[in-house]
């Protein structure tokens, strides 16, 4: 006979909650796909890369749904930011773990922690009011791929630094002693033993940062000018996939709305592909 008791109830309730929490991400993916279907069916997936441009409203015959320039802008902004953040973040992490005097290291680490918590809209505000006019004075119009890269760089830097510091601190001191016993100086031990030993953690930090940069909306939206075009130079304004959604969802209807969800789907696919690509080589090496 089934006997109801509080243990059973606890197991049932918590089990249900866990399943519900696990289903949310599937619901998100499912709904974004569901909302993309009308556009994908009516237009076909190819038109999102071959159309003349992005003109989702107006005369039906003249409409175009090309997302390619925005995919390019998204990738360029994120990769540019990471190219700056990776070496600088590693050096700051090395400073924090190797060279920082205690009196200086603690406040700097606290400051980096604070920067990690600054909302993206505040980074965007600073970029819009301070950085963009500076770039405009040098190379108009200012709101550009470059300002997007710089703001994103500053935004993902704390992520890179904090995760790299954690990876470097996780390297056991015995490895350093072994390196010293082999006659390596502190610098040699750092670059040839400690950093390679922390490689996995550092790679994780960079993947996390790149995924954040790809998915970032507000900071980029506020500083890149939002013109849909293939950029010819760092000083051209661009519009990313995320900015496109944020700018147009408010008034989009029918196919236009559905096309924006296709953009969201593409964005999620980019992030997923990145995470998978980062997992693959590690798996391969483990099995080798």
């Amino acid at each position: 006979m089934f006997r109801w008791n509080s243990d059973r109830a606890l197991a049932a309730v918590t089990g249900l909650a866990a399943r519900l929490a696990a289903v949310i991400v599937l619901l998100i993916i499912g709904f974004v796909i569901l909302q993309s279907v009308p556009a994908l069916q009516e237009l076909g997936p190819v038109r999102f890369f071959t159309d003349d441009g992005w003109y989702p409203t107006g005369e039906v015959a003249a409409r175009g749904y090309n997302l390619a320039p925005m995919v390019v802008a998204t990738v360029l902004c994120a990769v540019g930011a990471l190219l700056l953040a990776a070496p600088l973040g590693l050096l700051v992490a090395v400073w924090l773990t190797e060279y920082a005097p205690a009196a200086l290291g603690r406040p700097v680490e606290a400051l980096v922690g604070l920067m990690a918590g600054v909302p993206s809209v505040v980074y965007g505000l600073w970029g819009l009011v301070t950085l963009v006019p500076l770039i405009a004075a040098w190379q108009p119009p200012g709101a550009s791929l470059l300002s997007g890269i710089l703001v994103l760089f500053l935004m993902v830097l704390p992520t890179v630094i904090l995760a790299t510091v954690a990876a470097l601190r996780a390297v056991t001191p015995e490895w350093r002693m072994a390196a010293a016993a082999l006659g390596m100086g502190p610098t040699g031990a750092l670059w040839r033993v400690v950093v390679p030993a922390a490689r996995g953690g550092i790679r994780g930090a960079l993947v996390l940062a790149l995924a954040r940069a790809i998915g970032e909306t507000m900071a980029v939206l506020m500083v890149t000018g939002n013109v849909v075009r293939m950029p010819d130079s760092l000083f051209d304004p661009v519009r990313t996939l995320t900015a496109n959604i944020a700018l147009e969802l408010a008034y989009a209807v029918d196919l236009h709305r559905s096309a924006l969800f296709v953009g969201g789907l593409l964005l999620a696919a980019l992030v997923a592909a990145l995470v998978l690509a980062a997992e693959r080589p590690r798996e391969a090496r483990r099995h080798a």
Partner: protein
Amino acid sequence: MRETATPLAAWGATAAVLAGALWMLIDVLWRGAPGLSMGFLLEAPRDAGRAGGVAPILLSTIWILAVALAAALPLGLATAIWLSESTLQRPRLQRAVRLSLDMLAGVPSIVFGLFGNAVFAVALGMGLSILSGGLTLACMALPIIIRTAEEGLRALPPELRLQAAALGLRRSRIVLGLLLPAALPALLAGTLLGIGRALAETAALIFTSGYVDRAPQSWLDSGRALSVHIYDLSMNVPGGEHNAYTAALVLMALIVAINAATQAAARHWRRALSWQDPAAGDR
């Protein structure tokens, strides 16, 4: 040569990064502080936000956070209990739940916005409202709350469980009456982390809780969050930068306060652990 190049580069890089970070923080302080007053916190915005304050916006922000917590906390705590209690465990299902929570943590915020708009606002008929926005944020904060709560529950010394079981207490009594209270500071730290994340969020709220800058009368009213207010003032309102900066300063102050509270909770937690288990203090 290399023995001096590396420290030199490390010091240089740190100085550069420090300069950039301080530039931004001081900029927000410098431009935001002149507008800060009691009136700014207590008045309604006037002239599209160029004048007046942020009182109704703070109210909307609190409502949205309250909805998010009311939804995410019970679900998150129950999931954390399920994940941390070894005998309730089903390994394959547990791995699937963890994987799906990791994926959830990696979803870009604008995609949460798309989802919240399509599901809560449109499909479930909640419209642009406090409720839609709060539920969307609850989905975003869930992985953070679950992870910290689970870590907190797992960090408790196993003797606690064993001794309680030896006294013949039921598992449900042990979990709800003993383990949850013992892990309270860790649960609090996780909740605060979730609040911090939710406060900083903008992109997921624009199309779920909306833009209306009046004080909400019910949770089905649209309400503008502080972060959305900053975005709107700086992008859509010419001459709104001053109040955007002041609002940004208020938001930063809230986030710093929450960070400090999180750290205090975590410190208290470590001390509580070391009291229960002297060895834990050294970890």
